[in-house]
């Protein structure tokens, strides 16, 4: 008893419960994904799932297609989002914090609601659902996730860098391209993290925005899980997972990783 007391007296030990929790609910599940991915429905180790993945061009193509859509979506988000973040962070806006909040709010509306609302909008203005609407909808959904991290970085950016650049003879254009932009890159990177991967892995959104015409990678993962093909589904998830890990290698600073973290 006394031992336990003294053990929890050390605050460092307070991380133990969470450690256990994470081992069970974070690490173990991921291990299971790998486990199922290399397992045949009848049980026992197998590489069939990989074989099917490679042979069925659908999955691969869908993956590629999703990546393509994700790229377009990310690009548009950057193009629209960066200026917004820049303007918001520049003191020009007296009511800046309110404006930022306005940009964040959509982020907290249930993703399906948002999407249905978007679909409704397209229906309302009689735009036929298809790839175009898919991209539009994606931008709708993810723009805030791009703006926030960029904004937070620009916010933290020390003005004296800009002054130093001006002092050394840079006009506002060059100040932007030689100092502000490079220094805000971390924000852009984490913005990409928040937009690119989710775009690939979402399901439902794509279905709703295109009446099941267009599938993204997430959709086929879900279909396989739902149709009871857990092993193949697990493999697809594993591939998704690998993609995420790879892209994360590019992203240096993890602090920005949470849009939410930026929000607090």
């Amino acid at each position: 008893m006394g031992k336990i007391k003294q053990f929890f007296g050390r605050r460092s030990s307070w991380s133990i419960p969470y450690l256990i929790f994470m081992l069970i609910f974070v690490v173990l599940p991921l291990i299971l994904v790998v486990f199922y991915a290399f397992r045949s429905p009848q049980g026992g180790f197998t590489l069939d799932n990989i074989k099917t993945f490679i042979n069925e061009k659908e999955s691969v193509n869908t993956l590629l297609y999703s990546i393509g859509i994700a790229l377009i979506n990310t690009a548009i988000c950057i193009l629209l989002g960066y200026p917004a973040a820049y303007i918001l962070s520049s003191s020009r806006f007296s009511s800046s914090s309110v404006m930022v909040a306005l940009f964040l709010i959509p982020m907290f509306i249930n993703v399906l609601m948002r999407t249905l609302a978007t679909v409704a909008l397209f229906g309302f203005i009689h735009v036929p659902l298809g790839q175009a609407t898919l991209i539009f909808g994606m931008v709708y959904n993810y723009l805030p996730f791009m703006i926030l991290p960029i904004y937070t970085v620009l916010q933290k950016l020390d003005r004296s860098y800009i002054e130093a650049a001006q002092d050394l003879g840079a006009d506002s254009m060059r100040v932007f391209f030689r100092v502000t932009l490079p220094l805000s890159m971390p924000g852009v990177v984490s913005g990409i993290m928040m937009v690119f991967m989710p775009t690939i892995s979402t399901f439902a959104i794509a279905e709703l925005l295109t009446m099941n015409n267009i599938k993204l990678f997430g959709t086929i993962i879900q279909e396989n899980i739902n149709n009871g093909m857990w092993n193949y589904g697990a493999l697809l998830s594993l591939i998704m997972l690998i993609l995420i890990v790879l892209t994360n290698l590019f992203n240096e600073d993890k602090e920005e990783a949470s849009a939410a973290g930026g929000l607090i």
Partner: protein
Amino acid sequence: MKKLFNAALLFVFALAVLSCSGSNSYDRPHQLKIYNWADYIDESLLEEFEDWYYAQTGDRVEIIYQTFDINEVMLAKIEKGQADYDLVCPSDYIIERMINRGLALPLDRNYGFVPDYTANVAPFVIENFNRMNTPGSNANDYSVGYMWGTVGFMYNEKYVDRSEVSSWSAILNPKFEQKLFMKDAFRDVYSPLLIYINSDKIADGTVDVDDLMYDVSDESIAQVEAILAEAKKNVSGWEADFGKEMMTQEKAWVNWTWSGDAMWAIHEAEDIGVQLNYVIPDEGSNCFFDGWIIPKYAVNVKAANYFINYMCMSENAIRNMDVTGYVSVIATDEVLQAQMEQALEQPHYAEVVDVSYFFGPEADSVVLNPIYYPDASSMARCAMMHDTDQDTEKLLKMWSRVKGDNLDAKMLVLIGVVVVAVVVAAVMRSKKNKSRRKSGKKR
């Protein structure tokens, strides 16, 4: 402010604890977990059954009702997930599979002093179920029919003439570009197209429709796939369930769908002044039968059996039909009467039809709604699907190939460009750094 948030936190915690204890306490044995198609029942019957069941047996039961819109999803939940549903309502070929895979419990038609209403099921349905019999097992011992119907075209009379959809080839008609909804259920598309392909063979009797329903030969699949591939440009959506809504909204003109959905949509559409109709193409089609099955992992078997029986009572059958637009397998006079009255209410759809195959010989010419009860002549061209068990994989793959991916050259180019750009950028950066390191070392 701080205080306020303390309070809030406290309150929340209290609420949390309360709700936790509240919402998790349920006793499984007194529940009846039903897993049924979406929009496939008059939900008020659920509560009424709870009382009825109590009246008959003195046992309390609480119904937990969930819905699915794809047979395979339901099956996966039971077969892989071992979900403990007490009652599910799969379609014919899944019934067949579940029985063959021993996922179904035999029915117990001993309802104490309650009459056995399952006797109301039309012989026509019993026969069809018998086609699923395997040596030593009779499908009717495991399943009782619930609803049945046909696969065909629902179309918008404003834009489409009946003659344009009287053949399955309609899906190739350029007029319907982006105006066609396909049912997102591969079996219900594959089989009719099979019939379409072999229509002349069927005509001259070289091929028997029922055998055709087992056909998953690669060439057949290839043929179907070819047609679908060609039809794809017309498809504006693959609907699991939203076709009916969208048709009423005139988002499309033609919908490859089930007679029941069509009927539901027709009712909906009338309210907002849209004229929809439904036709079984001349080549013939599928007729499908959905039946109740008590899965292997069921807990409350008794209630499940009673529920089946309850569903077979004429008045309940009629109520379900009114709500869902599907056709019950019950073939009592009450049903027939109700349907004839109904038909009169919708003269636009009423016809004189021969339904002796269903209601018995004296019903060889009655005024009914052929969408509910097709004329014997067209029924003759319809066949029930059969389970192709393992080979289903092949169909699934074909299906996913058809719905397939939207990858096109543009995308590939785009991706290529980006990848190259990234690589180049990375290389250049590393080079730069290297050169720096070097010149750095020099001094």
